[in-house]
């Protein structure tokens, strides 16, 4: 099943580790070489993930490029990797955002470079592994591997309260993941395997009551990661303190791990429980949409604002997943990608002025548009992408989610749609306060516009934002079968032909 007999997925997963080894081998004094090596490796990794596309069969809903090696015989754990449309998109997003994050760190990171890139590369392996693993234990291993480098990225290269934020992030998410671990254990003891594919083939053998417990355990793990209201408070702290690249990856990829988990594991493996709890989760998602938007309005720190907007946006994704209709679910997956693009870009945008001014307080800025027109344009595009302007990526996802939700409940749709109004509110207000008005603060007088390197980091994101907005077909095409397959398991009633 591999391309030319090469275990391509293993290669894709562990290539960053090779980069990590190379960076480790370089002497710490050769900063340029370290930077270059890290950039080359993340760049090549992106190319490698794109190469996956060449042999990927978009018309199939099955897992592809399966790699299956026995791992721990004693408990039947396997090294099982596979990719379908959902994973593919997220892997591509991961490798792209990591590359961009690496690129954006060229100047932003000055101290302890070697460690920085080591952690960044390790992080990439963890994230890609999460999206590719089809063995629950293996999945868990990758899931946890992500925590440590992120902890250090926040803790070493973060802002003033980095220590607090780092440990809060670590503890909070660890609490979730150990709950998930218990869920995995129960699943395994029922199925006698970790193999997700085998579990799916076996069908829901768990009684509904047990499913509910496992679901709740998984829920804790995934919901904290998403983060769903009311488990979200680690996010603003982590985001605010993390370095730019950390925020980009955190928002762009890490949050998706949670929603991915719901879609890949909670829903198909525990369909009855998922159905049972779907309304409750939807309600939480709706609360998150409105609540996240409201709290965003009150933020004085740009990063914090965007962090809370993530809560709102991820609420949209959760809504899309748990109304259990194929359209909304597809929209949700696309929205994961969209959020990665637009929020990732927004964090980069904040990072750029933070790098120049060492503050992120909104009140410190104003009128930047006249000094930094290109920056203003990029910021505007990403703002519009974030608030779902048609023609840009955000719209497609939100539209599909709303349209997919309507048949289930008009009220949910209506509440979610208020999020769109509020979203425009806080984002435009942010944009106005930072970019518009008179250039009152003399510190901003000498601000430089984007350099070419900085522009280059944005370019792929802008292209993607337009591409997905205008011609999302290739993205949705790979999603179609796998998402529908999952929704069919969870919500067969949706597909029933009456009588």
């Amino acid at each position, binding site marked *: 099943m591999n391309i030319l007999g090469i275990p391509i997925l293993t290669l894709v997963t562990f290539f960053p580790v090779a980069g990590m080894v190379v960076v480790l081998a370089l002497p710490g004094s050769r900063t340029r070489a370290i930077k270059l090596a890290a950039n080359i490796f993340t760049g090549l990794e992106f190319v490698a993930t794109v190469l996956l596309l060449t042999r990927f069969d978009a018309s199939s809903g099955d897992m592809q490029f399966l790699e299956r090696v026995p791992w721990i015989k004693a408990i039947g754990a396997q090294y099982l990797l596979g990719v379908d449309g959902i994973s593919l998109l997220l892997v591509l997003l991961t490798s792209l955002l990591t590359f961009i994050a690496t690129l954006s760190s060229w100047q932003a990171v000055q101290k302890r470079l070697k460690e920085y890139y080591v952690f960044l590369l390790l992080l990439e392996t963890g994230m890609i592994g999460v999206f590719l693993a089809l063995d629950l234990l293996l999945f868990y291993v990758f899931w946890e591997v992500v925590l440590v480098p992120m902890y250090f990225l926040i803790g070493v290269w973060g802002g003033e309260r980095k220590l607090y934020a780092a440990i809060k992030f670590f503890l909070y998410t660890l609490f979730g993941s150990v709950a998930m671990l218990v869920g995995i254990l129960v699943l395994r003891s029922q199925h006698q395997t970790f193999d997700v594919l085998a579990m799916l083939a076996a069908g829901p053998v768990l009684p509904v009551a047990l499913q509910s417990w496992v679901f709740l355990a998984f829920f804790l793990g995934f919901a904290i990661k998403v983060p769903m209201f009311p488990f979200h408070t680690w996010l603003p702290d982590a985001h605010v303190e993390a370095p730019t690249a950390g925020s980009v990856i955190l928002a762009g990829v890490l949050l998706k791990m949670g929603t991915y988990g719901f879609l890949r594991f909670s829903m198909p493996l525990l369909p009855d429980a998922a159905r049972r709890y779907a309304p409750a989760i939807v309600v939480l998602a709706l609360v998150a949409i409105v609540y996240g938007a409201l709290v965003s309005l009150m933020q004085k720190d740009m990063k914090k604002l965007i962090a809370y907007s993530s809560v709102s946006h991820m609420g949209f994704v959760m809504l899309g997943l748990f109304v259990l209709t194929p*359209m909304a679910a597809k929209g949700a997956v696309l929205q994961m990608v969209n959020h990665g693009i637009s929020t990732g870009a927004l964090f980069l945008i904040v990072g750029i002025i933070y790098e120049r001014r060492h503050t992120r307080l909104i009140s410190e800025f104003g009128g930047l548009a006249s000094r930094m027109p290109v920056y203003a344009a990029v910021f505007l595009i990403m703002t519009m992408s974030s608030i779902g302007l*048609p023609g840009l990526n955000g719209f497609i996802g939100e539209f599909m989610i709303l349209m997919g939700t309507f048949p289930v409940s008009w009220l949910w749709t209506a509440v979610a749609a208020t999020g769109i109004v509020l979203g425009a509110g806080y984002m435009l207000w942010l944009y106005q306060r930072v970019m518009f008005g008179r250039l009152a603060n003399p510190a901003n007088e000498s601000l430089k516009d984007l350099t070419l390197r900085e522009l280059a980091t944005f370019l792929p994101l802008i292209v993607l934002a337009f591409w997905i907005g205008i011609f*999302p077909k290739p993205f949705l095409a790979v999603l179609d079968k796998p998402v529908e397959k999952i929704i069919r398991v969870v919500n067969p009633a949706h597909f029933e032909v009456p009588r």
Partner: protein
Amino acid sequence: MFALIPLFPLLGAAVNGIVGIRYFSRRAVGVTAVGAAGLSFAASIAAFAGLLRSAEPVLVKTLFTWVPASLIRTAGGTTIPFALDLTFRYDSLAAVMTLVVTGVGLLIHIYSVGYMSHDRSYARFFAYLNLFTFAMLVLVLGANLAVMFIGWEGVGLCSYLLIGFWFTKDSAADAGKKAFITNRVGDFGFLLGTGLLLFALGTIDTAGITAAVEGGMLAKGTATAAALLLFLGATGKSAQIPLYTWLPDAMEGPTPVSALIHAATMVTAGVYMVARLHALFSLSGTAMAVVALTGAFTAVYAATMGFVQTDIKRVLAYSTISQIGYMFIGLGVGAYAAGIFHLMTHAFFKSLLFLAAGSVIHALSGEQDMRRMGGLRKRIPRTYFVFLVGALAISGLPGLSGFFSKDEILASAFASGNYLVWGLGLAGAGMTAFYMFRLIFLTFFGEERFSGETAHHLHESPPVMLVPLQILALLAVVGGYVGLPRILGGGAWFGRFLETSTGAHESHLAAGTEVLLMAVSVAVAAVAIFAAWTIYVKRKGEPARRFTERFRALHRTVARKYYVDEAYNRIFVGGVFVAARVADWIDRRVIDGLVDGAAALARGASRLSILFDEGVVDGAVNGVGRVHLAASSLLRRLQTGFVYNYALAVVLGVALVITLVIVVL
């Protein structure tokens, strides 16, 4: 062919926005932008000609599949695949709209070359303007609600950008944001309406909706709900009650923008949308009544505010709101063609008025307050002339375009039997004539109230601005003849042309009644103009001043726009902020507090267990009688490393284990 129409402005916007902004000379920018608009207009004409020749009343062009098919479950209980194509549809309605948009747009582009010639961000302006044209064209050509929504939001974005074009001015930036967010509130309705239609019919293609509705597939209640939701979107975009407040503020933008976006095209998008979905609206009497009444009330209500404005552009802004109200009256009584007819004529004379006002402002070095104008008739006679033409057209002087379109609407309203609407419309007509002529008299008549400095620079606008004005003036005069009613010897060609897209609308009025109605409205307008002349020319505004003295509270209320802005700010913006503050508080204090509380709890438990380990047994033993000791020394006593209390713990543990085994298990 017609798919090319939006292409040119898009290219123009891209070229100017990406390359031109840095590398083009002013001339190159202008040529690019005007060229794009011109090519688009030419394409519109060609397409129009093609449509006239074509046997097919509707041309469809699918570019590509936008959102591939997903299964959705519809109200009928069936699960069907639903895909969204990026499709354009060209029919008579679209033809009219494209002609208006590109035609007026072209003129305004030309005008702007002159008007904006001194602005720093010349290329940016034209990029936005072209982008706007593109978005508007997508809106009118879009074959389904989603594609329409691209345009719908696109024009909103451009409006936002153009209102806030001079973004260093806080008021401009605020106005842009207000426009966008108010529109978003409307979008909320639009999206929900779209969702409802999709759920109910399984399609959001406009033709599909029309077909399904006419096929009786839609329950009346659903139709009402969908129509009202969509109409909420229309009120946002078209600045009707209750979402009109953004439009007067939008006058912060450059005047050509006001003319193109906030008079001629974008604000009529709501009208266009309702006309496009006429079948849906027609199905629901309630929705129709709401549309008509909203229009009628807006027409009068906005007109009252026109009475007291002193800013020349704001008068025109309220006038626009009022006139769009007229269009909705037409739509609401089923006379869709009449509504669109008025849309077209309004585009001519209102953009004329705005541009002329721009010319005035231009001449007075940016002065917009009518209290510092006056007597300009002689100073800038050409501008005065075209302005007068526009004012007469809007006031409904027989023979000018406004007369035909407005009368058709009023006649239809009368015919529909909704006399309240008709009455309001008639009142509005009179008020329109009054405030328009108040504007004219204040601006062009009487003594010169501007400063000498301004007078020194006073000059007539250059030809690049005047020529478009004159063309528009011509259109404002003759534009009505395409819809010349039968009673006046015309064939109502316009209505028949639109029948293919908006359906037939037969007036049941007797010829005599119709003539009588015309006469009444002309008379009302004439009286109003006369009144204005009396008050502002003959008596030099004295009665107005006295009226103001007498009814100070009333005047202030109207002048302050009935405090609606304040109320909205209090209730909605304030409400949201209160909610936001509460949410923020909850977030910091309650939710994060719980997290920190859990941590504190763990720490407390930790201290407790250490305390126990290090001698709470001893404490229990020795504690009696030692309570009087200070807490710290007690703590010291407790933290002993004695052997015996550990030994005691062991013994207790043994007892515990045995008890556990015997009793519990």
